[in-house]
């Protein structure tokens, strides 16, 4: 593997849960040295939430905790002790980037807020990411991503017009925010190379979410239209929706966006008589009869698997796609071609799947080589090699409980 893009870039990763760690992961994918700071006494949410290997809880058994921390080194350090905070400042001294995804004010309790870090290292680049941003009347919003997603307007746009809005299980804005921030963070790294100046980046995840609803927002701003949920319909195209297929809870998505695609769809379905209905020959006509048409298409799709429908239609240049379940993603031939899932051997979980970036760089491919760390897994390497502590220092820290270990974990998460 060739030289990695961010080789030599150093990140002190204090961030919790999803957004903060994913930003650092993007740098870690491409060779940055990222040290993740955690503590057995209060394990962060991804370690307690699961999913756990075989459904069995354990501080190092959660794939949520590993998936977002590919290629990172992990140390255990109790930041609630003066000595722990002192060690953390040494890590800041070492770092190019410091990460924060706590509620506003939390890092300050440990002396690790931006201003404090700037005193330690004037050109530090420091990012804070939280639901609402660092300032404002709602800055203390008790936010998980699911609440931020509701506040940003997504839930209202999810579901059926005749039913309650639906949640977005994936806490959508939590998974778009990291890429917005990573883009800016890399620009900040380059800015520092040019000017010697550091940077503080204060991201609001709700604001990122709103940005990806841009046209819908403008529809309100310019037209005072309050968009609402439409099931699987589209304002501008028909037929457009999900169609039942052979198998349990199996569906295919089909969207016809032109007369030509309509004719090809009919041909693939064997030119059924109902398709010759004059009402269906125009786009407007199809839109006005969409319920009827979609029921009829469903009578055809139900005899096929989603893959069959997709293949037949795509070869006729009609847009169609399997409604993929998680299981399907792992056998998807295109994702396999892209080598999306990489399998790494984790000390506790065993061999399991990690994501890779959505972009492929032709000359500097990323190197996905290290599973997300067990808590404290790299203590020796980081304390000794990076921070230059002696074996005696490290022993003392362990004895004093500043460097925590498994027996400090909550009972329910301790290794058996």
């Amino acid at each position, binding site marked *: 593997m060739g030289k990695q893009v961010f080789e030599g870039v150093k990140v002190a990763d204090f961030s919790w849960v999803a957004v903060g760690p994913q930003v650092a992961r993007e740098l870690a994918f491409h060779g940055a040295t990222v040290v993740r700071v955690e503590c057995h006494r209060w394990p962060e949410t991804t370690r*307690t*939430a699961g*999913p*756990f*290997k075989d459904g069995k809880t354990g501080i190092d058994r959660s794939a949520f905790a590993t998936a977002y921390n590919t290629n990172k080194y992990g140390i255990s350090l109790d930041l609630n002790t003066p000595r722990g905070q002192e060690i953390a400042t040494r890590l800041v001294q070492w770092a190019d980037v410091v990460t924060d995804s706590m509620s506003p004010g939390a890092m300050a309790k440990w002396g690790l807020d931006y201003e404090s870090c700037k005193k330690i290292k004037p050109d530090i680049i420091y990012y804070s990411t939280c639901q*609402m941003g660092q300032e404002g009347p*709602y800055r203390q*919003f*008790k*936010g998980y991503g699911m609440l931020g997603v*509701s506040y940003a307007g997504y*839930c*209202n746009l999810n*579901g059926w017009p005749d039913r309650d*809005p639906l949640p*977005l299980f*994936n806490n959508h804005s939590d*998974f778009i925010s990291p*890429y917005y921030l990573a*883009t800016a963070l*890399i*620009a900040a790294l*380059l800015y520092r190379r040019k000017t010697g100046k550091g*940077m*503080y980046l*204060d*991201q609001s*995840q709700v*604001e*990122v979410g709103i940005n*990806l609803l841009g*046209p819908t927002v*403008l*529809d309100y701003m*310019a*037209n005072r*239209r309050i*968009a609402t949920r439409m099931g699987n319909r589209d304002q501008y195209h028909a037929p457009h*929706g*999900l169609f*039942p297929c052979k198998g349990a809870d199996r569906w295919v*998505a089909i*969207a016809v966006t032109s007369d030509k695609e309509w004719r090809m769809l009919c041909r693939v379905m064997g030119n059924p008589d109902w398709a010759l209905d004059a009402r269906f020959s125009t786009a407007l006509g199809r839109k006005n009869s969409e319920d009827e048409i979609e029921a009829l298409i469903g009578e055809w799709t139900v005899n096929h698997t989603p893959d069959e429908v997709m293949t037949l239609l795509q070869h006729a240049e009609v*847009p169609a*796609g399997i409604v*993929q*379940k*998680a*299981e399907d993603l792992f056998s998807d*031939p295109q*994702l396999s*071609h892209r080598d999306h899932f990489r399998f790494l051997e984790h000390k506790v979980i065993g061999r399991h*799947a990690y*994501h*890779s*970036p*959505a*972009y492929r*760089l*032709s000359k500097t491919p990323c190197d996905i080589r290290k599973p997300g760390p067990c808590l404290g897994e790299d203590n020796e390497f980081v304390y000794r090699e990076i921070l230059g502590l002696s074996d005696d220092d490290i022993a003392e820290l362990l004895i004093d409980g500043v460097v925590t270990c498994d027996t400090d974990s909550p009972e329910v998460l301790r290794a058996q």
Partner: protein
Amino acid sequence: MDFDNASLLSGCRVLDLADEKGALCGKLLGELGADVIRIEPPGGCVSRNTGPFYHDTPHPEKSLHWYFTNLNKRGITLNLETADGNDLFRRLVESADFVIESFEPGYMEELGLGYGDLEKINPRIIMTSITPFGQTGPYSGYKAPDIVGVAMGGMVYISGELDRPPNRLSCPQFYFLGGLHGATGSMVAHYHRELTGEGQHVDVSCQQAVVLSLMIVAEIWDMLQYSYRGMGPTYAGARPNAPPLFSRVIYPCKDGHVFCLITGAAQAGMVASSKALAEMANKDGMAAELQDYPWQTIDAATITQEELDRIIEPLKEFLATKTKAELFEEALERGILLAPITTMKDVAESPQLAARGFWQEVHHPELGETITYPGYPIKLSETFAHTPRRAPLVSEHNEEVYVGEMGLTKNDLVFLKVNGVI
């Protein structure tokens, strides 16, 4: 050029060929201060026909989708399929830093403008190609309007009601996610280029971008061999030593709906939140049966569905009696895990967004008014002056670029126009 924006990507030029399948990428680079030139076919790009429209007037200069995704870009027209057009593009590449495109895989190569060709013109060039599934592979030729794309990425299956098909989010995300990851990938390549002088090709898959947005859906399959399925306004929690727990999360209220977490103590703050919500209800003379409920004894790992439903019922009744604003105000004060399910109107009127200075006013002289746009969601300590520029009109900057910067004459432009080059 009247760009008064000295900022992080100052001095970088982006040639943006991407239609709606990649437009967000150039927009994000423009937000960081790059000079983004949107290059459209003569007469304008077909994506100008994407709704919604300003005052519902379907006109190529009134697409709100176009306005949003092409904010801060300049606009020129160019027909790459003519020899003159091809030439002009190569000249532009000589001094450009990024090329972004979203054509079908192979199209740029056919024109002699693939990455291998551009690299010869300018070894520093970064070419970012954004397609539904990537440049190569069994699905690389597949067509993917939003619903097809997000379905293939796994995002549709995780949302829905159990008695209906899964559902797509009623706001397109597929190509926005691809554009977003395209911007990140472009910046990784840019960092490498700044250090080494070497450009490269950035090949983006919108499908992968969707897979990366699924939180733990892939991990749940990998660990538990379960494919998460949307099941209405509830969350399901798998539990090692008990049947799964279904927790309602969306509740009707007086003027809409709220999202509220009322479950056991699994997540930080849940005990305090549930207690505070019950107290709020009690104060209103409701949920009397939950007075003195021993919230801290709830074990999320073993609480029965019956018990949880018993707790939720009176709270659901209470929530229905209050407005979103009333509930949210209390939630903020008392630490209740609750958020309003906002409409676009609520978003526009949010005091938090106003306090953050989130909105930006963009002047549209042709419309005779200013429209409020979402602003940049990250505050940077190094601030840069920036006047937002509305999306370009068709061929708006032809003269500025071709004549002003490239030394063509106005007569050349007429000639090229008549010959279908611009």
